[in-house]
């Protein structure tokens, strides 16, 4: 009965009850504090540089806004210390640096690009962005502290998928059209872009679906001539995904979201199965779909034409892209300095939609290629953290979730950076953590918060998989 077999290296840990709510002991996070201090110093110097350029004297540009932001960062840090969880200490400072750069950029742009009135107080661009940044910090920190179990994501993956599709349909039907794109959903006083939330839901669903069916997709083959395909029934979701992406392009005219969703889908499929053939099939489908779209729809052909040569119509269709390229060219190696970018033409910055679609072009002008490379490096750090958290996770669902969440941010940053630099046709997605916009900031805060929660080693163990009826019968029989 007690025969301890040789080769058994088990360690007895007592009953396997998850210690979900033990006594909470504060746990210092020195690395995070050191990195945040560095962020604060960098942002103060940045603000000084901006203030000196604009006011011709060494004063901080908008000391109050910066102080509020830095105070919020400190509060987020203290809250995490007090919660005593062993979560990642690099993510928050990295995202804080990106958010701080965003704040400096929004302070520097003309404030009347966006005005919103809350309770009789009118806020300009930088102030609205600051409010959203604070909300995003609050969301990320709260999720990172509070979430201790992932079963609410894992168990209800089809429910989440239904919510996602529902949101999409609502936008299709009730969405308001802005610039020919039907992206914004207005419910009462709140307006938001559901696609930003949708990308998180997509990752949750894919992580659930792939972790459940991974073994089957990897194992079985359908032979089709020389091609070794995975079992056809398991390809159905893939085709459905492709159809949804195309639907988004046709109905919403949102190329960026379609590209993002499909890219994330292929990346997660590859991570889950390790089969290059799936990615190749996906890419072939993608190319065929794009070619079809480009011949059928004028607005997509226009985008491609602009990408191939924006100088054909530099004052009309190609205006944005041409101005962005000029901005990068003016920036050169180290940029012209914060606040010293091209003055507005007729009270407007030369690039339309610079605060949402082209923040990288503005930063490229003022910080140069050196600054742009640093910003891309920060995104790379976020992706690395996600992959690392995924590699250390105990089970497949958490692995795939962490990897997918990080890749969503990475791929989105790549799509819009490449669009700004004319590497890809321009698509209107936001640059995570930097672009102006509440939906974008909050959705990305959701991603960071989930990553923080997933990085904790002490989380509740994964719940039991769903129990089939035969299994339950067996349990009853043995209990009798």
């Amino acid at each position, binding site marked *: 009965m007690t025969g301890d077999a040789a080769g058994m290296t*088990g360690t007895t840990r007592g009953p*396997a009850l998850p210690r979900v709510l033990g006594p909470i002991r504060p746990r210092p996070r020195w690395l995070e504090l050191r*990195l945040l201090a560095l962020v604060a110093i*960098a942002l103060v110097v940045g603000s000084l*540089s901006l203030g000196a350029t604009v006011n011709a004297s060494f004063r901080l540009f908008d000391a109050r806004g910066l102080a509020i932001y830095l105070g919020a960062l400190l509060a987020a840090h203290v809250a995490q210390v007090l919660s005593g969880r062993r979560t990642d200490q690099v993510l928050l400072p990295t995202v804080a640096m990106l958010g701080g750069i965003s704040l400096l950029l929004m302070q520097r742009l003309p404030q009347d690009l966006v005005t919103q009135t809350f309770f009789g107080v009118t806020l300009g661009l930088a102030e609205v962005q600051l409010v959203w940044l604070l909300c995003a910090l609050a969301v990320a920190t709260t999720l990172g502290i509070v979430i201790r179990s992932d079963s609410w994501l894992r168990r209800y993956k089809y429910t989440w998928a239904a919510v996602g599709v529902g949101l999409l349909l609502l936008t299709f039907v009730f969405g308001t059209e802005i610039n020919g794109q039907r992206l914004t959903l207005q419910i009462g006083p709140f307006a938001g872009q559901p696609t930003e939330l949708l990308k998180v839901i997509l990752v949750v669903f894919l992580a659930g679906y792939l972790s459940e069916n991974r073994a089957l997709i990897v194992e079985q083959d359908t032979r089709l001539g020389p091609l070794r395909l995975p079992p056809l029934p398991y390809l159905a979701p893939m085709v459905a995904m492709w159809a949804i992406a195309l639907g988004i392009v046709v109905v919403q005219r949102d190329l960026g979201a379609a590209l993002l969703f499909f890219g994330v889908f292929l990346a997660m499929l590859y991570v889950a199965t390790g089969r290059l053939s799936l990615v190749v099939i996906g890419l072939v489908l993608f190319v065929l779909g794009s070619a079809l779209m480009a011949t059928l729809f004028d607005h997509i052909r226009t985008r491609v034409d602009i990408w191939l040569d924006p100088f054909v119509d530099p004052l009309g269709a190609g205006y944005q892209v041409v101005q962005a390229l000029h901005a990068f060219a003016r920036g050169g190696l180290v940029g012209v300095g914060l606040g010293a970018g091209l003055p507005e033409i007729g009270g407007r910055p030369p690039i339309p939609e610079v605060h949402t679609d082209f923040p990288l072009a503005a930063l490229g002008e003022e910080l140069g290629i050196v600054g742009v490379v640093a910003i891309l490096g920060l995104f790379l*750090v976020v992706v690395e953290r996600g992959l690392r958290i995924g590699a*250390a996770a105990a089970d497949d669902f958490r692995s795939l979730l962490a990897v997918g969440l990080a890749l969503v941010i990475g791929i989105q940053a790549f799509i819009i950076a490449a669009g700004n630099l004319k590497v890809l046709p321009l698509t209107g997605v936001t640059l995570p953590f930097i672009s102006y916009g509440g939906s974008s900031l909050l959705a990305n805060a959701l991603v960071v918060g989930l990553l923080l929660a997933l990085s904790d080693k002490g989380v509740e163990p994964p719940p039991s998989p769903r129990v*089939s009826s035969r*299994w339950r019968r067996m349990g009853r029989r043995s209990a009798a």
Partner: protein
Amino acid sequence: MDGFLLVLWAVRLLFLGLIYLFLARVIRALLRDLRAAAREPTDRPGRLIVLESPGGEPLAGQSFGLDVITGLGRDVNNAIVIDDPFASADHAVLTYRGRSWYLEDLGSTNGSYINGRRVDGVAPMGFGDELQIGQVRMRLERASG
């Protein structure tokens, strides 16, 4: 005015320098983390955690580091001994081939179940899957934490 411009450029370059200093610090932390992970003995490709065991052998909550081939059953020569009236002497074998886990049922009387589904012959197992042999429930997890 020239002095002012000089200082201004110094401040601008300092800002860029500080961003890079931050990046360097972060990358140092990441490298340290990766090195620590590489030093950890992760030669075991997985572990099996006992969730429920009415017989008390193995104990519920116990965690087994798995070898590439791990036998399970009532016989004491198995790496993981399952003392359960519904388990056979040589019940099943867990193997790690390529990059995934497989469970092979060795013709046991009452069968092996992965996530509640009975295994015929060999079946792949992913991390997070639940294995039932007799009345003993176990979960396969990644070894490194």
